[in-house]
């Protein structure tokens, strides 16, 4: 990771800061995780008979791997629009605290809210994690331009991977197709486990895995929602109990 010093004249031009941000995708292992995840999403979209353009548009406009997977798999399994929308929106709740945490890092007293709309759109787990790492090396008044570049670079990776995964699933043997679809649960599980620094998050991950098979016995169409709220609430209760009064 090599950035010019904070007071360097190289930071004077916003376009240059944008370019630094875009180039910064090289310095994160999460770019590879993102690539692998979107290969899986592209393959999933193919195997559930969505068009390639639909899959690309979803990557561009939704820009959240879990939401895209939930959207594709619920629609493909015959859930109603309302059921899909509820499952997607519940999975997206986690974006709220991420946006809340990311924005103060680049806000200045002069910043207008509309200048942060695109930053909010790009915010997802990868950008959230990398902002903590990169932004201390970026002058505050250039951070929005930098994050626009970083977000664009990551989105480009996601779009290319979606297309590659889609085409691979269309042309590969069944075994290799299965290997690509297996990338998604593996990449999500390990990247989430790596980001679960607090007990509540680790517990929520383990309990969420364990409770889903039970909830799916209910066959309610909202199984993910039911197991998620139950497991998350138990994890939160344990966290409070450990914290003491």
């Amino acid at each position, binding site marked *: 990771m090599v950035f010019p010093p904070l007071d360097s004249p190289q930071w004077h031009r916003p376009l240059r800061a944008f370019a630094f941000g875009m180039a910064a995708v090289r310095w994160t292992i999460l770019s590879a995780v993102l690539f692998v995840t979107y290969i899986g999403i592209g393959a999933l979209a193919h195997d559930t008979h969505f068009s390639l353009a639909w899959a690309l548009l979803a990557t561009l406009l939704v820009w959240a791997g879990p939401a895209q*997977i939930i959207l594709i798999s619920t629609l493909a399994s015959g859930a109603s*629009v309302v059921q*899909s929308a509820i499952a997607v929106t519940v999975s997206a709740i986690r974006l*709220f605290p991420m946006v809340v945490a990311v924005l103060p890092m680049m806000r200045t007293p002069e910043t207008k809210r509309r200048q942060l709309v695109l930053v909010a759109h790009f915010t997802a787990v990868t950008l959230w994690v990398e902002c903590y790492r990169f932004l201390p090396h970026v002058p505050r008044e250039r951070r929005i331009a930098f994050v626009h570049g970083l977000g664009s670079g990551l989105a480009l990776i996601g779009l290319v991977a979606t297309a590659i995964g889609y085409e691979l699933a269309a042309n590969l043997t069944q075994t290799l197709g299965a290997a690509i679809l297996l990338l998604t649960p593996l990449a999500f599980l*390990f990247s989430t486990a790596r980001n679960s620094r607090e007990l509540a998050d680790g517990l929520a991950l383990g309990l*969420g895995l364990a409770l889903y098979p039970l909830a799916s016995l209910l066959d309610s169409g909202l199984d993910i929602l039911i197991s*998620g709220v139950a497991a998350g*609430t138990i*994890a939160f209760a344990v966290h409070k109990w450990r914290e003491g009064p």
Partner: protein
Amino acid sequence: MSDFFGDWHALLLLLVAGVIPNQIWRMLGLWLGSGLDEGSDLLVWVKAVATAILAGVIAEILVHPPGALASVPGLLRYGAVVVGFIVFVLTRRSIFAGVVSGEFLMLAGKWWLG
């Protein structure tokens, strides 16, 4: 053109069931976020529920596998994840090592079963 995008119905589904329910939380974060404390109980709970929902998504793909993944026997799917996770822990949380070893076990098992 309609072949390229699929039908308009699919695009409408994307907007109504995907884009809007997802983006609403980002925009709420943008509009309401400045007054919230990151360590507040509400946000800790929200984060735990969101993590558990993600875990549910992972479990769903493994328990009810889509497309080509359904051709892999259940025990092999679960085994690949368990072995991948063990390697992930042993390598001090290397995502790459975990993914590669999980994939390797699945492919080796499938080859062995014929």
